[in-house]
Structures are given as C-alpha cells and as structure tokens.
C-alpha cells in the first residue's frame, strides 16, 4: 500500500515520528471506519498520536478527558439552566407551551465534546483520553454512541451525526476495559521507541539538538530503561531531558558526566529510582554509550 508510507511521511512533517505499524493502523482506521484504541505506558506519546492525526487530516481536535464520575452532562450535552431560568422569568405570564418550546431549543443547548464531535461539517478527530479512568457505565454509553453515531435528547429529539469523527481512545490500563469496547476498536500497543526512532523524535521536537547528541541521549535513555526502575521514563521525559541538555549548551554527554547525573532528575521521578541510579551507575551507563 502506498498510503502507508505517505501517512508516515506526513506525520513526520508535523513532528510525529511513527513506526510502520502505527501508520498501518491509521490507514486501517480510514478504511474500516473503526475507532483506534491505543494502550501503552504513561508518556509514550499516545495523546500525541491524536494531535498528529488532526494535523494530518487538517481538521479540528476535540478532546474528552475522562475521569472518575464523568457523566453524560459533562461529556455529551447539558441544558443551560441559568439562561432557561432567565427566559422563564422574562416571559412570565406568557403561553406555557411557547415558553417550553423556546427554552428547549438549540439556543439553550450546551454542546459538550461528544456532541460537538458529531455535529461538525468536516469530520474532526475525537480524542477520548484515558478511557480507563471513566466508570463502566460511561464506557457502555460510549460504546452505543460509537456504533450508532446518533444522540437522542428527550426534549429535542434525535440528533444524527453530520460527519463521522476519527475516534482515538487512549488507555493507561488502570482498569480492564470491556471486551465489547475492545472488539469494536482497532488496537495498537504503543511501546517505547527504539534508539533510532527516539533520536529522530528528539531531533524533530527539540530545536538545536544535533544528530550525535540526540543519538547519545536516546542510547542513554534506552540503557536507563533497562535498569530496574519503579517508574520507567517515557518519551515525554526524554524530550524534557534533551531540552534541558540543549539549554545547558551540552554538545557531547561524555564531556559533562557531572551535569548528566544532575540533570537525570528530568527522567527519574521517584526517590527510590534516584538513589538506585547513583553517580557510579550513571557513569557506568554513560561509559556504554558510544
């Protein structure tokens, strides 16, 4: 397929370096019109995929951040109660039916992300972030929406989708998702990138990062990931670290072992990991980086 390489290329122009499999997943998304479920450790760039996808299609990104207790009124739609009340007061003594028709019209409807996503003229990218944090009930409701792409509002009637959005779901696996949802989606496991890809990511994202430095950083991070850590650094942390090193005007890691050890705080986020990767270990790892 030609479109696969094309997708990878176009993603690269917006700063997202995709592996070949992800490009396949994205081309399948369009072909089969299925949502894409991304799983992976925190900080490997799941959310970035959606952003890059929006750029790729030249369309809007609508994001729904899930949390425990997320319900319809903050995900789908809500009536604007305050304005409705004002309208009732203003038309006090008028015809009751007329008032009712008036206050339950589009004008008083607050669009939330899910409703907004199906009412655009051009299909947007709908990012449902950290779906595992939402409750089971919400997941079931989402499943219904994703299969029918229509919403029924009791006071207003059924609203059909004007365009089918490109849906991306991400999960950190804090909760097991239902089989039904998993089956509906294409699945892609986002892994930590290999050295080569990580170096390319650094170069694409950090201005002033030279090829040799990026490669050194990527190699170093890779060996740090192999240590037994409580919290393995993700790509986001790598980028932080690279930005720090570039900002400190470092050109070669071997020149400044001291600084390397000190700036490791960008990568290691718990006390335990910090003590485990002490000066000696850091130097040993640095020694292995060519």
């Amino acid at each position, binding site marked *: *397929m030609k479109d*696969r390489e094309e997708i990878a290329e176009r993603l690269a122009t917006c700063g997202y370096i995709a592996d*070949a*499999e992800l490009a*396949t*997943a994205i081309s*399948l998304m369009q*072909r*089969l019109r*299925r949502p*894409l479920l991304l*799983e992976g450790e925190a900080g490997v760039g799941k959310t970035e995929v959606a952003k890059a996808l929006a750029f790729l299609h030249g369309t809007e990104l609508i994001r729904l951040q899930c949390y425990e*207790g997320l319900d319809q009124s903050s995900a789908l739609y809500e*009536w604007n*109660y*305050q304005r*409705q*009340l004002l309208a*009732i*007061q203003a038309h006090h003594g008028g015809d009751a039916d007329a008032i009712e028709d008036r206050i339950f019209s589009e004008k008083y409807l607050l669009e939330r992300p899910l409703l907004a996503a199906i009412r655009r003229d051009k299909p947007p990218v709908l990012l449902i972030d950290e779906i595992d944090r939402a*409750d089971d009930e919400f997941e079931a409701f989402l499943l219904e929406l994703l299969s029918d792409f229509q919403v029924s509002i009791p006071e207003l009637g059924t609203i059909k989708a004007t365009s089918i959005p490109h849906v991306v779901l991400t999960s950190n*696996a*804090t*909760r*097991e998702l239902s*089989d039904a949802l*998993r*089956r509906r*989606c*294409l*699945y*892609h*496991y986002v892994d930590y990138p290999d050295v080569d890809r990580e170096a390319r990511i650094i170069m694409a994202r950090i201005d002033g990062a030279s090829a040799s430095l990026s490669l050194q950083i990527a190699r170093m991070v890779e060996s740090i990931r192999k240590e037994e850590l409580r919290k393995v650094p993700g790509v986001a942390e790598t980028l932080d670290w690279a930005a720090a090193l570039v900002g400190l005007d470092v050109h070669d890691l071997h020149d400044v072992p001291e600084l390397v050890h000190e700036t490791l705080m960008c990568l290691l986020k718990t006390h335990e990991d910090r003590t485990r990767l002490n000066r000696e270990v850091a130097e040993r790892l640095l020694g292995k980086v060519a």
Partner: protein
Amino acid sequence: MSCCGTTPSHDELDEVSRLVSTKLAAFLRTLRDNGFAVGLAEGRDAAALMAQGFAARPPLLRSAFKHLFSARRSDWDKFDGIFDAFWLGKRVRSRSLAIGSAKAANNPSLKSLQDKNLAKGGGQSATDQIPSDNDAPGGGGEGRMEGASAAENLAEVDFRKLADPDQVEQAHEAAARLAKAMRTRLTRRDLLRRRGYRLDLRRTIHRNISHGGVPISLVKRRRKDKPLRLIVLLDASGSMSMYTAVFLRFIHGVLDEFREAEAFLFHTRLAHVSDAMKEKDAGRALDRLSLLAQGAGGGTKIGESLRTFNRWHAPRVIHSRSCVMIVSDGYETGDAKLLGREMATLGRRCRRIVWLNPMMAWEGYAPEARGIKAALPHVDLYAPANTLKSLAALEPYLAKL
C-alpha cells in the same frame, strides 16, 4: 454466477476466493482458540482487507490483522507468532492450540476434575492438581452411602481427605455456592452503610425549573461507593496439589458472582486467569486453565510471582477498596527475602492481605518455612482454609472491609 457467461477463469477465481475464505475462517477459529475475542464483524472486515490487496503482501497483512484482531497487550504480543505459524507455516514455540484440535484431546486437562473416569489420566505438569483417587485406596466406597447428611459432614472434612469422586463433586458445588452467598451478603451490607452528602447546585436548579426556579426540592450528591474488589492469587504448585482443585472451583464462583474480582495463578511464574475463569461453564473454565497452568513442577517462586504481579498487574487491578487473597502453603523455593520485600510493596498498595494456608490446620504445623516467615509480618489475616467451614468463616471478615 449463473447469469453472465461462466468462463473457466471466473470459476477458478471463485474457487480461489472460496479457498481463501475457508482459510480465513480457520484462522479466526485458531485465534478464538488462543483466547482472542473475535466476532463476525471482524471477520467481515478481514475479508474486505484481503480483497483490497493486503493479501498480496504478508507483512502488511499481518500488521493489519494485528490491529484488527488484538484487543489487549497479551493478544498483541502473541499475534505475530500465531500469524506466522498459520499463514507462513513457520514453527512456533508457544503451544497454540492451532490447526488440528487433535492435540486438545490428548492434552492433560483440568477438566478431568469433572470427568471421573478420566481422573487417572495425565501424570505430571498441570495435572498435578488433580486430587488423586489412589491416595486412599480403602476409602473409595464409603462416601456414597451417607445420604442426606453428607453435605454437613463435608463442611468439616479436610479437602485432601476427600477421596470419593462424588464427595469431590459435592465439595466443588459447595465451594461455588459459598462464593455466591458471600457476594450477595457483602453487597447488601454495602448499601446500608452509605451516608454523607453534599448539595449539587447545578442539578438543584435544573430540578426546580418547574417551580420557576425556587429551590424547593434539593438534589444531593453522594460519594459513589466502590464495590469491594477481591483479588485471588492461587498457588498451583505441586505441594498444594491436594487443594488447588477445590480452590479453583471457589475462585470460579467468586469471579462469577463478585462484580469485581481478578484471579491469578502462580507456581514458578504468574498467570492472569480471570478471562479463562469467566467462562460460565465450570468445566470449560478449568479446561482453559490447564493451558495456563502448564510449566509447574519446579517448585514455587512466590516472591518472583509477586514481583511480576506488583510490576505489571497491581496498578491495574488494585484500587482503594481491594482485598488481596493469597492461597499458598508458603513453601518458597526462591529467595525468601525477595518475598518479604514484595509483600511489603503489596501491603502498601491494597487495603488488606489475607493469606490462606491450608496446612495451618494440620496438627503440629508451625509457620517454619522461610517463605511464610518472611511474609507473615505483612499479612492482615492469616487463616486456615482446608475445609468448607473455614472458607465460610472468611465472610464476616471480608464484610467489614
């Protein structure tokens, strides 16, 4: 194809597509055998992809199918192997139930727990767990004649002394019933305990629109109660073989009835078995488990299994209202210090750790094994669980959590 002139090439084409779809169907079956949740819609999409030219390029087809059929990390990891074995004829190391299901037939399986006649089949590996009938050659015929009171007597009998297949069956059923009863009562108590509220202003306004906005009826918000989640880690090593069968049945009941429960099996490594156990039919569930339980025989590495659990599963399965139940005799063949350390980590994460040790009720047993000694300081409840009665005694404790 009868309408337009049936050229031979058309027929050939048809033949080819039929072959392909048969092969695809077989592949879907293979995937299902390997625990993939694949439905009709996926099959249709797969066929569409093949027709669109993906079939000509195997690596691309593999990647496409991988996204389509996988639903979780474990699927994702094993997909390539299955695909290669099926379509490209490469040998694959993992024991996929693949093409012929003849293998399944002579595969020693836990299902033999049910099939009494099969009970003597299979010697080593997973079938360690079968309560062997040969243990008590004299006692074979006794249990059958006991009649109505048998169930009560069973409550006090140590599981390892159950010899008669009928008795075993009864014990299994009792364990399943017990799990069910525990669940019902636990939830009921849960409802009674709810209290505390705060005002939900937004909904109050909404509710009172019909009163012209005067807040007459108030809407309150209460904290959503998390149901108690039970996580069971079952030791399936050789030393526990007399007990595993009953506990597996108990766990099957628990998973079926508790709204939230997870189960893991460990011997020298850890296996997540919730999916296999959620099979409605107990026999089939145990059958699937036999595949997962393979690899036993080299002692018990509790510490290492716990480490795997803490590293890969704990963040997902443990929440603030979780109780971890470890069923093991504590005979650690690995590093006892590691076990202590991992128990401490686990203790920080969950609300309660219950350790059930069937050996505890044996006469003259003292927790001398290194493993259990290292683990005990971190355990909240250390109880015997060798009879149905002692299993039932757990319920009040769990209800208080």
